[in-house]
């Protein structure tokens, strides 16, 4: 389905990013695994990817840093000869009530989750324009659509990603670069493991499908958006949330 394609997935050492990297590899794409700190985990993902018979390597970069993202994309192009798919998944959270949230907590989340997406898009844009095509898939969040108490920084960044997705889609449409977002709901990852039982129960009561999602549920939609089947879709945000937000 994606054989011969090259993908770069940010924040791919664990959680949703890891599942996306594996899914794209399973479909035949070569995958570069970006990570910020978890080198061992990133290496483990690379080894798993190679079992699908495709090329893979890990690359450390802070997505919010222009120089690092430029260097990262350069390396992907030199290893794979192209960048056909960029998945902007890297994200952090620093949850707090607004009245207690420090400026630093706000800035860090905006930097990684929003500016990081911009930096990576900018870094691949030249290559994708030359190729006359590409797919960019940004991982937003359903709380970027609905809002969530205690996550002002995170939801602002994730809502920002949706706006950024639409502008990028319009700007690059003439070059056949398609840009979409996915908005996962409650997915079982390290990030959601941190939530208390009470918080989880509260969330479950808001999900019509009455269960949490798996990282693979998100990965399969990303795989679709990266494929030929999605060639007439751009600027959209697809919620993957068990019906939480409609």
């Amino acid at each position, binding site marked *: 389905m994606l054989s011969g394609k090259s993908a770069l997935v940010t924040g791919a050492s664990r959680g949703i990013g890891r599942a996306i990297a594996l899914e794209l590899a399973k479909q035949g794409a070569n995958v570069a695994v970006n990570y910020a700190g978890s080198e061992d985990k990133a290496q483990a993902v690379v080894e798993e990817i190679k079992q699908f018979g495709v090329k893979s390597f890990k690359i450390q970069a802070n997505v919010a840093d222009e120089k690092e993202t430029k260097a990262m994309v350069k390396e992907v192009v030199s290893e794979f000869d192209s960048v056909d798919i960029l998945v902007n998944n890297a994200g952090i959270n620093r949850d707090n009530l607004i009245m207690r949230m420090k400026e630093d907590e706000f800035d860090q989340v905006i930097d990684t989750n929003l500016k990081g997406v911009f930096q990576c898009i900018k870094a691949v844009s030249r290559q994708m*324009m030359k190729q006359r095509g590409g797919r960019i898939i940004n991982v937003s969040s359903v709380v970027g659509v609905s809002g969530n108490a205690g996550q002002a920084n995170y939801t602002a960044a994730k809502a920002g990603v949706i706006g950024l997705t639409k502008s990028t889609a319009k700007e690059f449409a*003439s070059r056949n670069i398609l840009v979409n977002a996915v908005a996962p709901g409650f997915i079982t990852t390290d990030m959601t493991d941190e939530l208390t039982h009470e918080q989880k129960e509260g969330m479950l009561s808001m999900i019509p499908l009455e269960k949490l999602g798996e990282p693979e549920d998100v990965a399969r939609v990303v795989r679709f958006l990266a494929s030929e089947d999605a060639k007439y879709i751009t600027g959209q945000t697809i919620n993957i949330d068990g019906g939480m937000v409609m």
Partner: protein
Amino acid sequence: MADVFDKVKEIIVDKLEVEESQVTMEASFKDDLEADSLDVVELVMELEDEFDMEIADEEAEKINTVGDAVNYINSSQS
């Protein structure tokens, strides 16, 4: 000088699909050659590759005509 112009002309004809006769030093990319903003950015990228140079964004923004591009390349190569 002529070499640079010829090379630039060749790239413009190829990229913007215009006639060679339309590409004069005075021709404006947007007004005369019907390029949109993205075309101009792309053209600048192409020139960077062709002449093995980096054109800073501030400089690239000043390139409106074919002559601007040719003169910029000439001045940076001398």
